[in-house]
């Protein structure tokens, strides 16, 4: 593959020779005894037992080296029915059983999200899928939860902007789980990294694709399958009969974002065919990403967070030329109240939500005018996604309320700023800067 070494030297790209198939007379490259059944990498054929050991070891090593899950902790396994998360649930099942070497010692539960409503599945299909799901769930010994879109009464906006996460988080919080495990595989994360890069989420890649994601505060999301490629998962599931349920793809209403994901997926698979280490290269680069805020970030590491994705805002209006670029392209289309908000001119926030009782009337007589307040509190990529939504969809009340609350707090702080006596430590900082 066209892959570079740590120094600036570029090795030439090279087409790989075709992977040798496990042929007659060949032995497993690991134990040199067993009959090879799986070619993990080109030229590396493992026998069934060695492959199982290799696969399980990866899972345990990922958990072990990160040391984030402690014994007795409640961990919610997010199961989509798909191969990777099914494999993950299976690993946990086996890992908890008495006879496994070094038993896993956390307390798991499983959550399955029924996306049938958003998929446009027919009622019969939904029922059929759910029946399959429950059959599998009944066979496992730990607690399980099935939630669907209607039950949690979340609106379609949140769904298409932060698919599944809010719902799973809700379940985790409701039942006191402190960790959520998702089944994202190496392949899936490599694609996600490239997709998020293209969506303008360069600042958040370490959280979006790393082992742990702490943005929600009380619940930490971990990704134990991130070292397993989709190919390995498929092999394992087939060899060891891991049950899974086919669920159709979510039909999201944010066409741009979904199509960027789809075309990135197609591109990566195409490139992988020509340069077989594409996925592993991208994955290795993702391991080198740091969870660091920009040094020049005006607000510091505890700065305001995006309303939708909860990552620290990555737009500082002052010096970012890309922010300028986005603004100049959008200026012609935004209403004057938005321009004011963008320019930082404080507009008194209305105390009512979305034009309800107590509304001041002139600044936000219509729900559409509370949009500028919300936009100011979104990160770069969430702003871009907002523009992608059909304009008639209203924002859900709880997001508007949060936006209001933050604006009011900021307004109040500004009002009393001149009367606050700063701490001497603060004063020292401001005189130095």
């Amino acid at each position: 593959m066209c892959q570079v070494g740590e120094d600036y030297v570029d090795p030439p790209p090279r087409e790989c020779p075709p992977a040798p198939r496990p042929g007659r007379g060949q032995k497993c490259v690991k134990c040199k005894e067993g009959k090879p059944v799986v070619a993990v990498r080109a030229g590396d054929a493992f026998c069934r037992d060695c492959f199982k050991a290799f696969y399980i070891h990866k899972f345990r090593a990922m958990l072990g080296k990160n040391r984030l899950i402690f014994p007795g902790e409640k961990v919610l396994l997010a199961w989509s029915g798909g191969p990777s998360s099914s494999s993950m649930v299976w690993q946990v099942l086996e890992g908890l059983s008495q006879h496994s070497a070094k038993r896993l010692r956390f307390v798991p539960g499983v959550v399955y999200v029924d996306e049938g409503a958003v998929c446009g599945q027919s009622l019969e299909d939904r029922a059929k899928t759910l029946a399959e799901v429950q059959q599998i769930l009944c066979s496992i010994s730990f607690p399980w939860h099935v939630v669907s879109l209607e039950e949690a009464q979340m609106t379609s906006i949140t769904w298409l902007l932060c698919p599944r996460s809010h719902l799973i988080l809700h379940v985790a919080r409701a039942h006191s789980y402190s960790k959520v495990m998702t089944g994202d595989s190496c392949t899936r994360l490599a694609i996600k990294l490239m997709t998020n890069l293209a969506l303008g989420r360069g600042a958040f890649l370490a959280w979006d694709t790393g082992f742990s994601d702490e943005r929600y505060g009380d619940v930490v999301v971990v990704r134990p399958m991130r070292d397993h490629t989709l190919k390995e998962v498929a092999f394992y599931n087939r060899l060891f009969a891991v049950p899974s349920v086919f669920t159709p793809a979510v039909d999201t209403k944010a066409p741009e974002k979904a199509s960027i994901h789809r075309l990135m997926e197609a591109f990566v698979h195409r490139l992988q065919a020509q340069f077989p280490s594409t996925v592993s290269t991208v994955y290795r680069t993702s391991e080198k990403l740091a969870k660091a805020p920009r040094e020049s970030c005006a607000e510091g590491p505890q700065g305001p967070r995006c309303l939708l994705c909860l990552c620290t805002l990555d737009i500082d209006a002052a010096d970012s030329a890309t922010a300028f670029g986005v603004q100049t392209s959008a200026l012609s289309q935004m209403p004057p109240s938005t321009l004011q908000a963008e320019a930082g001119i404080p507009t008194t926030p209305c105390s009512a939500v979305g034009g309800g009782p107590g509304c001041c009337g002139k600044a936000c007589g219509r729900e559409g005018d509370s949009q500028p307040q919300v936009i100011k509190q979104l990160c770069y990529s969430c702003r871009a996604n907002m523009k992608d939504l059909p304009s008639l969809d209203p924002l859900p009340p709880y997001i508007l309320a949060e936006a209001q609350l933050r604006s009011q707090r900021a307004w109040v702080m500004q009002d009393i700023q001149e009367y606050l006596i700063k701490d001497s430590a603060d004063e020292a900082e401001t005189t130095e800067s």
Partner: protein
Amino acid sequence: MPAPTCASCHAARAALRRPRSGQALCGPCFCSAFEAEVLHTVVAGRLLPPGAVVAVGASGGKDSTVLAHVLRELAPRLDITLRLVAVDEGISGYRDAALAAVRRQAARWELPLTVVAYEDLFGGWTMDAVARSTAGTGRSRSCCTFCGVLRRRALEEGARLVGATHIVTGHNADDVAETVLMNFLRGDAARLARGGGLGSPGEGGALPRCRPLQFASQKEVVLYAHFRRLDYFSEECVYAPEAFRGHARDLLKLLEAARPTAALDLVHSAERLALAPAVQPPRPGACSRCGALASRALCQACALLDGLDRGRPRLAIGEREHRGGADVQGTRGRAQAAVQAAAAF
């Protein structure tokens, strides 16, 4: 259906729609907006201080032509002087025609032009000779790697010759976006850690370099050149089809079809990448042979040329038996061996 009116002056008929925003503008208003945005990039980024002598990397192509034209318009306001520096890589047929375009431009703009040739700077090696040398090993794609390294060196030399304090190149948003994609796909963490900003400040004696067109989309560069009726050379380098960048370019085109602001979104991402400290490139020192900026004993240009001279062009790039699957350790080891061998000379 009548054509819309310009959204800026509300007087003239609109002649184009801006690719990113769809805003309808007349020719003059679009050109003013484009120039204003480049001015903002330079001023907000404090790229070219008053009194700077700016060497413009002029290839004769659309980007450097537009860059030179815009900077020339803005020069009085920025209080900078311009010098054109053209690099002759020695690619017959291609570069001669491009250089002819640069000479015409220099005459029209009345700007001093200096041409530096690989042949003179690098001991007789032209790109055609390099390509012949690397073709023997069955790896013609890597001649683009050579060209990139050597061209930066040549530009630096040319800039020093004319007494410049800063170097500017015409890279546009699409170029930067492609580079980010490419660096991720190839796992070049060191470049990712280095790049993304508005160019390099110039460490260890190297001249500061920047890209004033960094936030302009390629389509707008072409539109600007069209409305200002600029004369430029528009053929692709004969070796270009082999480069890996082509994949990144294809991907960017696909992304832009889905979302017109894709290039800018990628530039934004690149600006905010955070890489672990372990990956940061080491503080550069000086090349033991030519004194230029280098992270090892030999700078990359000297290391590459050394390999060429010894008839083993793959040496500095990283020769290895390929079993399938990347072999980072092997590459690094061999590259280090190459540098050590060269240093022992």
